[in-house]
């Protein structure tokens, strides 16, 4: 009986020792996950944005050479289908062949585009310009970003859609360029939604239907 007791004690001691070494399951650790047979887990292929010595900059993802054309499906605009490499208002915000900005959104504006614009506006614009476009975003509340413009400014209201597109794409003043992260389609959607935001303060109750006016009075 004593031997049994001793062996149980021994096993408990070994288990306790093992537990001290390996720790509580799922505890925070700086060590990368253990992979016993990594040859199938980590294959000789590249994933995006990983270290890769073959190229001089040491990255698996390379920037495309200058002049590379994006392979994409055409986008339906009011002036027919356009591709991303074409010199058309949809891609540049300018009248083809000139430096003049286009006055109006080249995309057909409907509720789907406005909804898309709202979602994208809330992601990329609202941190500074605020959800209402009045310049009261989180950066204003913290007082870290000087002079964020209100999109209800007369200057912005009178600005052509093409010029706003140009500002979003390339940035202006303190604002960075959003061309690289927001697709052209989404930039036009944001512009459509911005116009809707502006209209929300420019409109008069007379423009509403009788039902909407009744709802307002409640």
């Amino acid at each position, binding site marked *: 009986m004593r031997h049994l007791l001793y*062996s149980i004690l021994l096993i408990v001691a070994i288990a306790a020792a093992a537990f001290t070494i390996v720790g509580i*399951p799922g505890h*925070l650790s700086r060590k990368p996950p253990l992979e016993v047979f990594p040859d*199938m887990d980590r294959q000789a292929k590249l994933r995006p944005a990983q270290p890769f010595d073959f190229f001089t900059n040491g990255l698996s993802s390379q920037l495309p050479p200058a002049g590379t054309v994006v392979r994409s499906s055409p986008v339906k605009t009011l002036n027919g289908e356009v591709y991303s490499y074409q010199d058309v208002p949809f891609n540049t915000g300018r009248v083809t062949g000139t430096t003049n900005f286009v006055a109006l959104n080249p995309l057909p504006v409907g509720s789907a585009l406005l909804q898309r614009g709202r979602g994208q506006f809330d992601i990329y614009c609202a*941190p500074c310009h605020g959800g209402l476009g009045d310049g009261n975003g989180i950066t204003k509340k913290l007082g870290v970003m000087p002079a964020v413009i209100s999109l209800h400014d007369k200057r912005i209201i009178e600005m052509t859609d093409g010029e706003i597109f140009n500002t979003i794409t390339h940035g202006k003043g303190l604002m960075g360029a959003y061309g690289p992260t927001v697709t052209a389609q989404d930039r036009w959607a944001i512009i459509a939604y911005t116009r809707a935001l502006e209209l929300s303060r420019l409109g008069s109750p007379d423009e509403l239907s009788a039902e909407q006016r009744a709802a307002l009075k409640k």
Partner: protein
Amino acid sequence: MIFPKWTNQIPFLIPIGLALVGGAVAAGVTVYCTPKNTRVGYQPVQPVPFSHAVHAGQLGVDCRYCHSTVEKSWFSSIPAASTCMNCHSLILKDDPRLALVRESFTNNTPIPWVQVHIVPDYVYFNHSVHVARGFSCVECHGRVDQMDEVHHAKSLSMSFCLDCHRNPAAFIRPPGKVTDLGWQWSTNAAEAAKLQEVNGKNFVHDWRVESLQSCSACHR
């Protein structure tokens, strides 16, 4: 007498000992050698001490402001330094913690971020299809908006994937709430569970969520 008397017990002690040792090894392997332990808790030191808790939690910046390709691509992108500099050209513009970001921005050199969530190379996970159908970031990445330093919160093991693929209705949510990590149907747990059950079923049906369980859905 060649053998002492206690040796008579050996035939009984051997199976007991084997069972104890075998049980301990099996339990140890189950707990410690599965992704629930090997991956969960991995918290590498990042080259720039970026806090998701500050940016996504406190400031309320949407996940997609930085991870902008998540809706369009299988891969959720790590932001370029220019994305950081949209704000940090003004905010903390001389802070030593951001030295690497400024260097990356001016010299076009990569920041050596350490990837935390990385599935095996034979798994083909597509972010865009999950996000577009209303499966939140939080299901696989945990409450990143509360993490100062990101750690691996879920196991991302095959059984973890199958839990959801066998019953997507229990996890689906309105697509507009995908990046709202703390979102719930209701603050009342019982009501939330009920709404999840009713709406989850409808969402899965209406949006034709396939949640394939065939091998080739994830392994090619």
